[in-house]
């Protein structure tokens, strides 16, 4: 059934693109509300993003079962930006100006988001971005439903410091912007907490690094200096599996040197034998193992939709779940899908998250989330060992970076500014103009 409809959708959108290539696309049908899905289905990022495309199709179908939105059915428009960053911009433009979608859910890497930002700004549309990222950004047309560094990294470090008594830190990451920024923030944070410079080791590796022998040995050596050591890992995607395999084989146990990761979720663990990794940690805002009735329902519905009992759920999926429901609620509140109205309506909207609370869209276009620290279990799931007592507000401008600590974002009128400087009282960074 689903296969058929989506094929029809595909053919229809194919026709639309063709029409768009020929003449001005004035033929968009008005009986559905279109939602764009901008996730890579091929190339290096397909590994993470394909699930999110499925999640969105699932959410849209669920919403249509409930009667759609504003009395219309929702219609998904799927495109494949193929892990090619300029293609993201092209596809975003196509979704908005040719397919006339009202909102886009998509992107994973920071660079793909950066690539589409100007397009959303220019064409005044909406993007819901579901992945944890480095912060230092707030844009009027973008809603950041993943974690900012303060919703992931800093609580994790606090946990290790307080609960595990860690005194020596390895900050290991893939060499790109998210780890670099997060590690800068963490370094500043750790030093503020009195950690000496020689007790911090920073290490960067290329994307897809697969030979971890040297680095794991270095970590082992660094950790044998008599002080309790932990690794804070911002290692990205593909490189994680060989990293954890090497950790397990070199016999680094979580009790000796725990590794806390910000990019390893249930999906990544599905490719691993987790028995030797029990006790290593991850910090997220959601785990599949969270014990709430909302989550149970969500997982059951997801598994029956995807037709695979083994499929896991993860944090970015929850982010899309929250973001999608927020958009639905904001559209209902505004009574229209028109971008400006939705942007005004969505701030303050609060929807249930899957961990038993409510997440709210803040004026900075980030959302409130609980922070959970989980330990890897032998069955490939996480067990929550700690969580923040309340919800944490996503902080787009880090307090630990000198140039961003005075900035705030507030997209409500009259301020309506993404980089308001509280020191100078002006919009626009340092406020020199």
């Amino acid at each position, binding site marked *: 059934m689903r296969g058929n409809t989506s094929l029809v959708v595909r053919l229809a959108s*194919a026709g639309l693109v063709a029409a768009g290539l020929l003449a001005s696309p004035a033929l968009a049908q008005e009986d559905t509300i279109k939602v764009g899905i901008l996730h890579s289905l091929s190339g290096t990022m397909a590994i993470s993003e394909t699930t999110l495309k499925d999640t969105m199709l699932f959410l849209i179908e669920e919403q249509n079962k409930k009667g759609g939105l504003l009395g219309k059915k929702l219609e998904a428009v799927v495109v*494949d930006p193929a892990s090619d960053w300029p293609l993201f911009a092209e*596809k975003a433009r196509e979704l908005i100006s040719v397919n006339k979608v009202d909102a886009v859910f998509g992107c994973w890497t920071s*660079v793909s988001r*950066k690539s589409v930002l100007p397009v959303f700004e220019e064409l005044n549309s909406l993007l819901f971005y579901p992945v944890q990222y480095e912060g230092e950004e707030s844009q009027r047309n973008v809603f950041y439903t993943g974690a900012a560094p303060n919703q992931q990294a800093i609580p994790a470090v606090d946990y290790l410091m307080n609960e595990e008594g860690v005194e020596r830190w390895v900050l290991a990451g893939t060499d790109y*912007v998210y780890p670099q920024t997060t590690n800068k923030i963490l370094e500043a944070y750790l030093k503020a907490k009195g950690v000496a410079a020689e007790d911090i080791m920073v290490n*960067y590796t*290329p994307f897809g690094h697969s030979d971890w022998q040297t680095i794991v040995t270095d970590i082992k050596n660094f950790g044998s200096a008599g002080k309790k050591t932990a690794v804070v890992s911002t290692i990205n995607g593909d490189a994680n599996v060989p990293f954890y395999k090497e950790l397990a084989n070199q016999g680094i146990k979580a009790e000796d040197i725990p590794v806390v990761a910000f990019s390893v979720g249930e999906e990544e663990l599905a490719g691993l034998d987790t028995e030797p990794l029990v006790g290593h940690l991850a910090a997220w805002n959601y785990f599949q193992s969270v014990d709430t009735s909302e989550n149970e329902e969500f997982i059951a519905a997801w598994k029956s939709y995807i037709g695979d009992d083994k499929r896991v759920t993860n944090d970015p999926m929850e982010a899309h779940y929250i973001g999608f429901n927020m958009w639905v609620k904001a559209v209902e509140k505004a009574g229209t899908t028109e971008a400006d109205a939705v942007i005004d309506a969505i701030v303050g909207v609060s929807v249930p998250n899957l961990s038993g609370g409510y997440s709210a869209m803040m004026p900075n276009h980030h959302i409130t989330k609980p922070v959970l620290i989980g330990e890897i279990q032998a069955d490939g799931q996480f067990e929550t060992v700690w969580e923040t007592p309340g919800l944490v507000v996503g902080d787009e401008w880090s307090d630990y970076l000198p140039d961003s600590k005075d900035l705030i974002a507030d997209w409500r009128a009259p301020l309506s500014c993404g980089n308001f400087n509280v020191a100078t009282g002006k919009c626009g960074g340092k406020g020199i103009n």
Partner: protein
Amino acid sequence: MITQRLFVAGLTPRIQIVIALLVGAAVLVPVLNLAFPPSSPFHVPNYMVALVGKYLCYALLALALDLVWGYCGILSLGHGAFFALGGYAMGMYLMRQIGARGVYGNPDLPDFMVFLNWKELPWYWHGFDQFWFAAIMIMAVPGLLAFVFGWFAFRSRVTGVYLSIITQAMTYALLLAFFRNDMGFGGNNGLTDFKDILGFPVQASATRSALFAASALALAAGIALVAAIAGSKLGKLMVAVRDAESRTRFIGWRPENVKLFAFTVSAVMAGIAGALYVPQVGIINPGEFAPANSIEVVVWTAIGGRGTIVGPILGALLVNAGKSWFTGALPELWLFALGGLFVAVTLFLPKGIVGTYDQWRAVRRERRLAKADLPSGPAEAGDVRIVRASSATSPVPQGGPEPQPAE
């Protein structure tokens, strides 16, 4: 005088038509985009302007590759590197144009440097606030890299597959280098969030149309340049080097200089293509250095027909239009289609679309001449015509020019 002499050669009617088409598009598309309201059937939407503008930059890149591969026999698997370097030079200019409008409001440092705690602008970023300087760098950086790389490689007589692989190593090394945040080029995120170019907002329709026109004109100029080179004695020499390198050496030419010239000119063209590409897509990042991208350029050129001037342009336009269409229409299946296309073209159209068409036409003409059963006089005249065409569009003979890796 000299330029005049240079440019008359090689301008066959076909190339004149393509140049005329491009110049026409450079005028017409902006007019249709700006002068007609979106509701008019004559309106060209912004989306199309941006898309086709991007394709034209790819076409210029493919043409640049064709100059070295089709005419000189150097299969570069690293041409994306020159494209990306030109793009980065333009990106650096555009970054400096942002000035204090970045999110941190720092007038000197781009945003990514601010939040990574850079204190001052690295030396190699100086000067890029001036367009003329950036424009020189757009050509000089890829040109210089190609010159230095080619100087060593061609002098050492690295040929064939070895050369292809080290060009790939070059672009791969640059990819890794530009990924490094310490390099000061924005790491994986690259350069983005551009505001102005030459004082005009990059997002504005008029600027987009102007960039489109610039791309079309640059491509037209590129075609004229390649046609002129191909039609000159040097062009003949390039083909000679491609077909029998040692022969040229034993009659006193230095093939390494010929290759170096072609490689450098081609790199500069690729750099210009990259520079025009960046403001139109709004981002430049290390992904452009990926070896897969460079291989894709080779594929466009092969599909269109290497050793012809129109072929690579046609190939670049067709493959990219196909990619745009497939990724929207058949997102799960498009790699099958693209992969199948590559296999089919190499198997069934080894000379590419234009090459095969030329061959078919030549065969048909021969047949017609044979049917007419004319004496030798007119037949010779016909031959002369073929000869003229072949100096600009030089079909690659099978087997001969290819490097043979296995010895």
